[in-house]
């Protein structure tokens, strides 16, 4: 009823090519941004910030990165956690080597570093695809984690093999280290996520993004119409790893504060993010946020429900979570392979016709 574009005339190309051409979408985004920037701080405490909002934002960013690769370019990757680790260790080395550096720059440089590593492991994608590529990215997963465990330079020869984030500031506000306030951390993550999400939205509808989708839909046909697979695939790997690396830097620096390679960046983490992308919706920016929110909140809700309300044991509810997540993935693949984002789209289409569906 309220969601229809009737009467919204575009009189110039700039209007026609706006990111959100429909006014209602635009208002929706403004409302969400307003809530995120103005209302969320009102309820912000340590629990909300550290357990829900900050990890949600960081996982959204990482899921967005993986979605570029899997959803837009059709290259499967099982090594996401390893690329997160690259971002984390790059940020750790930068923070400790250049103490005066603003954390914003650290995050961006870590992203660039990860993009380089990602391109290196993306090279096999020029010859192989599908399962074969999955194995190649598994090689990245196991090799990089081993590297971060073994080479002491990466963790500054600390005795425990852990890395921990020192206190650094972004635009004069402390955002890492134990004494940084939750509010600063939240705002910092929010700004980075909003800016990258808008940038990504633009990239995927531009020339590069369209060449990724052409490769995804049919690589041979794409080659015939003049898309160069080398550039398309490697740029997808680079852009995706850039986002994942930035996410990794935030994951370690802002959220965890301390990390140990096998625990924080295991293969389970890679799968978790892949699931976020699948459940959220392959090839959708909104999907990355929906998937991250869904898979991050679901275990918390389930735990609260099963342990606190039904009084079941923690171990049982943990196993139950695993089953529910697994079953959900199968159900989504069967019922709605395009994920939550597609459900939202269907809802919008229905709303345009409501209350007269014929």
């Amino acid at each position, binding site marked *: 009823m309220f969601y229809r574009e009737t009467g919204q005339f575009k009189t110039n190309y700039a209007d026609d090519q706006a990111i959100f051409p429909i006014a209602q979408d635009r208002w929706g985004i403004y409302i969400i941004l307003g809530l995120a920037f103005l209302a969320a701080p009102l309820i912000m405490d340590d629990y909300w910030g550290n357990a829900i909002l900050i990890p949600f934002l960081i996982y959204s960013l990482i899921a967005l990165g993986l979605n570029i690769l899997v959803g837009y370019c059709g290259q499967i990757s099982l090594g996401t956690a390893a690329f997160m680790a690259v971002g984390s260790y790059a940020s750790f080395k930068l923070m400790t080597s250049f103490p005066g550096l603003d954390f914003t720059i650290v995050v961006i440089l870590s992203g660039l570093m990860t993009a380089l590593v990602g391109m290196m492991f993306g090279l096999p994608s020029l010859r*192989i695809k599908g*399962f074969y590529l999955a*194995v190649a990215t598994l*090689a990245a997963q196991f090799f990089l984690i081993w590297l971060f465990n073994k080479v002491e330079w990466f963790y500054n020869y600390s005795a425990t093999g852990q890395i921990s984030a020192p206190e650094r500031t972004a635009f004069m506000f402390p955002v890492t280290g134990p004494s940084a306030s939750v509010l600063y951390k939240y705002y910092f993550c929010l700004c980075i996520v909003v800016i990258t999400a808008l940038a990504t939205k633009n990239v995927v509808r531009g020339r590069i993004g369209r060449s990724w989708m052409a490769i995804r839909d049919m690589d*041979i046909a794409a080659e015939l119409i003049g898309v160069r697979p080398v550039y398309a695939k490697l740029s997808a790997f680079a852009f995706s790893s850039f986002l994942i690396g930035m996410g990794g830097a935030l994951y370690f620096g802002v959220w965890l504060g301390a990390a140990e390679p096998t625990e924080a960046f295991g293969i389970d983490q890679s799968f978790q993010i892949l699931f976020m992308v699948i459940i959220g919706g392959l090839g959708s920016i909104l999907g990355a946020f929906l998937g991250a929110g869904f898979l991050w909140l679901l275990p918390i809700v389930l735990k609260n429900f099963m342990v606190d309300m039904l009084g079941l044991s923690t171990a049982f509810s943990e*196993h139950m979570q695993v089953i529910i997540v*697994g*079953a959900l993935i199968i159900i989504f693949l069967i019922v709605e392979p395009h994920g939550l984002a597609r459900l939202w789209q269907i809802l919008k289409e229905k709303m345009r016709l409501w209350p007269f569906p014929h």
Partner: protein
Amino acid sequence: MAFDLFLLEVIVTGLLAGVMYALVALGFVLIFKASGVFNFAQGVMCLFAALTLAGIMEKTGWPAWVAIPLTIGVMIALAWLIERLVLRHLINQDPIILFMATIGLAYVLEGSGDIIWGSDVKVLDIGLPQGAVDWLLDTHNFYIEKLEIFAAVIAAVLVGVLAIFFQKTRIGRALRAVADDHQAALSVGISLRTIWVIVWSVAGIVALVAGVVWGTKSGVQFSLSLIALKALPVLILGGFTSIPGAIVGGLIIGVGEKLAEVYMGPLVGGAVENWFAYMLALAFLLIRPQGLFGEKIIERV
């Protein structure tokens, strides 16, 4: 002389570890050939089968010869359920969608196994021989575990039985027909659904064998499901569609891993085993993407 003996020991240990990988990879190949599904849950199926066997024996106290057929029954029921609830609804989807569905399946199986039988490490003892081979240890100071030799024998027998099953029986022919061409098989009256149940059951039984051997060796625990990941490079080496390939690939990975650990490990700080197989597979992919025995994929425009 002593050095050569050491080398030999490393190689033999590697070969026997390779047999284990091959056993898991075998389950993958069976399902991949018949349904084109890359079954990520194979490793968890090993875990689930071993857990079920250990759980039945622990809870009821029944001897192994009662518990094993029961477990086989469970695996067949599981195959039927998977076909009924998952595969049937995913016909005609991309292979990658099916692959992801089996990841979901792996989670479901893992969680249910833990809930039903408990998540503590279980000791599985169905009377397989254990300990070192005394004769070799005494005369040549050469250490091999009895269990590993036993596993090698089992694997050989299993491959033999599968070969006969595939070549000589009616169902085996139907399976090969389906593997060759789904459409053609359907048109001569082979029921795809039945075939899928059968092939998943066979894979379940292979998983049980692999699970029992691994479980006897190092206890039934979660890490068992991780060998599924090791089976991936094995398949790349051997080719996704070849049973002999799975065996040979398993052996190469097993030996290569142990050799790398012993000779390369000290130079770079150890634990090379974790990633060596994947890097080997990666290198191999660049040279011969279809694997040693796989069918060459020819792309037509």
